């Protein structure tokens, strides 16, 4: 679904990504993990064409990502960010309807899809008539996910989607996401700094440090065979045992 070839990205003196080569297959769920400022969010923005690499090439579904096709690429990808990014001047329903309306969907089709997703996200239908500021943090993130899924894109990029939520809501949503990832069969890239969350939701973990891939493998690999001293310390700092780990 996605491939990055020798990608480098600098912000002035700061190196966000340094010669990174990665591939993400269709239908896989991967977590990008790393400490703050390690370049993991940059990776998602590059895939969406919101930023452009200094060096290297990116392919989405085999197509070389270029400015001319960035809108088409963005429509193949659902994107969810930490703060939800819901537009406060629009109701939930209108937030959901933004892209479908532009694509010429009928009102009935939009409403049917909205109701379908509300059920999927276990939200009451009354939520659709509310404004984002009238929702709880957890509800807002569910709506953000609904918006990302509206046109049923093949890929889902999530940047710390649960980062701002309290632990109970967070755990509940983690459960929901896990079920969704299994049932929806989408290519998912999840950025998080929480290794436990990554291990719980993703089958593959890419640990990024100082713009480079420190280790790329399963949770068990990271715990049992850390590639270097940084990985060992990062894993130890999380104080969590992965499912199935001894």
């Amino acid at each position, binding site marked *: 679904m996605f491939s990055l070839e020798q990608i480098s990205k600098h912000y002035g003196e700061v190196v966000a990504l340094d010669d990174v080569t990665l591939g993400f297959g269709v239908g896989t769920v991967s977590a990008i993990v790393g400490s703050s400022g390690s370049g993991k969010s940059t990776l998602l*923005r590059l895939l*969406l064409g*919101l930023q452009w690499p200094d060096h290297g090439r990116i392919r989405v579904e085999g197509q070389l990502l270029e400015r001319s096709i960035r*809108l*088409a*690429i*963005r*429509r193949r*990808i659902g*994107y969810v*960010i*930490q*703060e*939800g*990014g*819901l*537009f*406060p*001047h*629009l*109701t939930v329903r209108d937030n959901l309807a*933004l*892209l479908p309306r*532009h694509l010429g969907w009928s009102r009935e089709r939009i409403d049917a899809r909205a109701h379908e997703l509300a059920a999927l996200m276990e939200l009451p239908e009354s939520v659709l008539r509310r*404004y*984002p*500021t*009238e929702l709880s943090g957890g509800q807002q993130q569910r709506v953000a996910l609904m918006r990302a899924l509206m046109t049923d894109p093949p890929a889902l990029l999530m940047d710390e989607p649960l980062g701002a939520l309290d632990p109970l809501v967070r755990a509940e949503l983690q459960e929901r996401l896990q079920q969704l990832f299994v049932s929806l069969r989408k290519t998912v890239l999840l950025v998080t700094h929480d290794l436990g969350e990554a291990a719980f939701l993703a089958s593959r973990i890419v640990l990024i440090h100082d713009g480079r891939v420190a280790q790329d493998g399963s949770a068990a690999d990271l715990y049992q065979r850390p590639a270097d001293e940084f990985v060992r310390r990062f894993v130890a700092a999380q104080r969590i045992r992965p499912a199935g780990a001894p």
Partner: protein
Amino acid sequence: MSSCADSSPHSAFGRPARLDAVPSLIRHLCTLRLRRTRRGRALVLGSLALTLALSPLAGSAADAAGRPARVGSKNFTESVILAELLRLDAERHELTLQHERALGGSAILWRALLEGSIDVYPEYVGTLTQELLHGLPQPVMERELTRALYARGLAASAPLGFEDRYALGVPEALAARLRLRTISDLSAHPELRYALSNEFMNRADGWPGLLRTYGLAPRTLRGMEHTLAYRALAAGAADVVDLYTTDPEIEAYHISVLADDRHYFPSYQAVWLYRLDAAARWPALLPTFDDLAGHISEPAMRRMNAAAQLEQRDETAVAAAFLAQLHLASSTAAHGAATTVPGGRESAAATEAGESSAIAITHQLAARTREHLALVGISLALALMVGLPLGIAAAKLPTFGRFVLAVSVVLQTVPTLAMLVFMIPLFGIGATPAIATLFLYSLLPIVRNTLTGLTTIPAPLQESAASLGLPEHVRLLRIELPLAARTIVAGISTAAVINVGTATLGALIGAGGYGEPILTGIRLNNLPLILAGAVPAALLALLVMGLFQLLERWLTPRGLRASHEG
């Protein structure tokens, strides 16, 4: 005799303190006034200045022993030069005069003289008979004038030799072509365009009477600021202006002064107006008056005005040069009675002095409102059509944005009066140049707020908007502009309110509106007249602000309101 200035419609000039209550709009206007307001009565600014100027001057002449005699002057060049002439000449008589320079308009000087804050100042007989001694039966005879002054402890000297009268002027070329020599000749040419000073149009001894006396029926008639009227004439935007017979512009702009063949305009002989107790206390004053009496001719005065105004020479130097020539050329003529006063000329219009009052103002209010709304509405609509796209472009293209913002800031710093002057050669006079000016002033708030509104959308929202895959124009219309709407409407509202205020200055170039009574009122120090323009303007500003608040409320969806309240 007690029916003097205090009971006249202009009684407010006697109480400068009350003028503090005048809305700041008017004070703003005052700071923009031109250097010369000539025979106009006190300016509001002048009265404020006088309050300050007089505060250190303790009490009346009687109790201030040993202080020098004081000569005052009005706030225009001619008056300052005359006062300097008197001061310099007094030195020849070993009399030291202190010159209180450019205090304000006639009303201010008159008041200062009555209170003993000054002892003498140059005045025009017409101003005395038509304005300052308002209660006198018309026509004012010499004997009555002397008596009226005497009752106040004042007297007037022999005439200085020149008159500073109102007159009408046309460009010399036009005069030659149409064979215009007298004002009567104008009645055959109703197609000529008149640009008259607002004060002249409203004075009892000005336009209304002139119209009747000569049966003029011009098709185009505009009220303007006096100096700007000259500019309009020079630019070919007007054919006939009113003028003062000692204006240096008459020669500078090659203007032909039309003869007042029906003797309509009252006499405006220049005299020294002084306190009788001062003449007793400083005996050298009267011989000094005699030195100058009859020696300052109209051309001589015009030359001195030109030297000071057009050549920018110092008034003292101008006065000194004139005195040197005078004393070189002649021995002083021994003039007789210093209290001789030329008779006030009969003036039909003067009897209707109080006419231009409440009724006329009420009748004009609707027209003024229409004019004002047109100025504000049209300029604002144009500014929206240009400012919004500019603001959007500025937000999308940072380099262009900085350029646009810099230009609108620079435009904002151009003083209104200067802007109006620039507009005359481009658009002539009337509403068009005023609308152009207001349009330019409206750009900054609209462009800046559009730019600010669009660029301060929170980063997560910008990122979400971008990631959806919507084309640029859809993002702009459905997401960015609605999110920026509050800020943009606030900018439009600012522009509109500023426009309501600034549009009052349109009256300077004949655009009409609420500015006409305000400007005239300021020149005549007529508070009711000022308020007749200022109050509706203030109300309109409040109304506009209220409407925009409603609009903002209506434009702001529930979601945004909640986010701002929560």
